[in-house]
């Protein structure tokens, strides 16, 4: 029992790290939206050309996409983790080198979409996702290794 709780604690720690990274990237993406919109706003007031403003608008749109992916991924992860914690399938697996690994079960209707959202999030924050049937293993990679 004590071991199980300890395992859960490590899993929760890994999930916290994933959320921290996601939060950081989300703030970055929102900043990207904000500063580029600000350029469009201020330059359009001065009568800049649509061509000139286009690249900033495109960049803002791109960052809205990133922010959306991060938000969807976070929502999918949090709901999956809560469900896994409730049915006791959230657990830490023995570390692979220095990288902490967390396993959770994702199943039921819409599981594919949920996993897809988590994969998208993971690709943006330095986390790898491995799916073995219903089992999903998240590996938190060292910071700055894989994400942009």
């Amino acid at each position, binding site marked *: 029992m004590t071991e199980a709780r300890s395992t859960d604690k490590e899993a929760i720690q890994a999930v916290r790290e994933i959320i921290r990274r996601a939060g950081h990237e989300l703030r970055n993406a929102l900043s990207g939206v904000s500063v580029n919109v600000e350029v469009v706003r201020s330059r359009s007031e001065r009568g800049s050309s649509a061509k000139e403003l286009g690249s900033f608008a495109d*960049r803002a749109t791109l960052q809205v996409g990133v922010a959306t992916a991060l938000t969807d991924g976070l929502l999918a992860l949090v709901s999956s983790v809560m469900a896994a914690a409730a049915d006791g399938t959230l657990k830490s697996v023995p570390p692979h080198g220095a990288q902490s690994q967390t396993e959770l079960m994702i199943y039921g209707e819409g599981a594919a979409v949920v996993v897809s959202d988590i994969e998208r999030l993971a690709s943006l924050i330095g986390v790898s996702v491995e799916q073995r049937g219903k089992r999903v293993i998240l590996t938190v990679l060292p910071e700055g290794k894989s994400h942009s």
Partner: protein
Amino acid sequence: MKHPKVLIADDDRSITEGLSAILRDEGYDVAVAVDGQKALDQLGAEPFGVVLADLKMPKVDGLALLKELQQRAIPTECIIVTGQATVDSAVQAMREGAYDYVEKPLTADKLNRLKALIPKALDKFNVQQRNRELSSKLEGLTHYGELTGQSEEMRAVYQIIEAVAPSNASVLIFGESGTGKELVARAIHSKSERAKGPFFALNCAALPKDILENELFGHEKGAFTGSVNEKPGAFEMADGGTIFLDEVAEMPPDIQVKLLRAIESRSIRRLGGKKEIDVDIRILAATNRDVQKALSDNDLRDDLYYRLAVVELFLPPMRERLGDVKLLANEFLVRFAEQNGKAMSGFDDAAWEWILSYNWPGNVRELKNAVERAVIMSRGDTIKAADIMPRHLHRTGEFPTPMTVPAGATLADTRRQLVLRAFASTNGDYARTATIVGMTAADVRAEIASLLNGRPGESSTPAPTNGVRGAKPADVPPAAAKASKAPVKSAAAPAKAKPKKR
């Protein structure tokens, strides 16, 4: 017009592109570094007034960048912009020397805050840059206006003068008598925008009250018995320029009140006059008094002090700028040799030893007078210890400075220096000197005599009966000659030195 330079260090292109555009629109010259290492490389290659650095970057992160900037002494102001919104990271960034900290996301409010922070950070950078340029300009400088000195203490004085001169602020100059307070005032005036206007100096201690008041404010015709003409005072004569009030703490209290009123209203009324006369002056003042004591003794009014001491400048005494003694002595030698039409080659070793070990309580003025006298009295082309030393033996105090024995100095050199210092501290008392240094009075006489003859180090042999071995009567200074013939006095501790007031 040159645009201020800002470096954005962030690996997120969507942010750097947008932020660059915003800052360029604000008039900045913007460069981007995509990681901390590239930021360091760019900062090392060219100056940037401000760096906007992300806390989390590849290779070198924001905190490491701050540390490197400090270690490499790269001048810039760093504003940390980060998505890691934790108090710890903010505190750490500030501790590492960040100018400020802005959290992402950069909402419109935060962007406005960032836009407001950049000019403030640039102001700080520019002020520090000016100070750095000034420091490097002043480094190695031996002269500033009429002031001479290359010591760290004098460079600090030059720096204050340079900073304060362009303003209109009143400056209160502190310094012992003879340190050059009026020269500082003249330097401030000549470096100011009032340089083309008059500089009017008045010694407040040198004049009786009525005359001082008249000198300051002038009088109307018939103001007092014998005033047959009107006369403008110093305030009117210094209009458009600078007035320097030396020994201001000696000014009588009721004149201090009038002075305060004149400073506050920028207008004066002549003695016997009814109309106010506007004056445009800058006031510089000086005192050699302990100002806190002068205030507590009610010799100087608090309100006048605060008006005069907008900037305070402390002029170091000669004993605290020993590094300048040689420079000054040589300069005075050249000046007075030329004035007196004498070809002088310099000071001999014994003379230097005296000059460098004496504590010059009368400061630069005393050194100047001593060298002038030595040039006049000298019979050769080299100033000897006897030429420069005697006059001061009458009025020296103890030496507050430690004695330095250079590596390689002989025992004889060290003994001679000890004897010389003790001899000066006892006002030329052989017996007291002997007690202090632990020698016989005869040995002290011999040591001093050999020094006065310019033959240091020949003093260990027993002294002749007259106590001044080999000294010609003309070479023996009155004090030394008198002391050498005087009966041996009982030993006593040397008197405590006090700066001489003039």
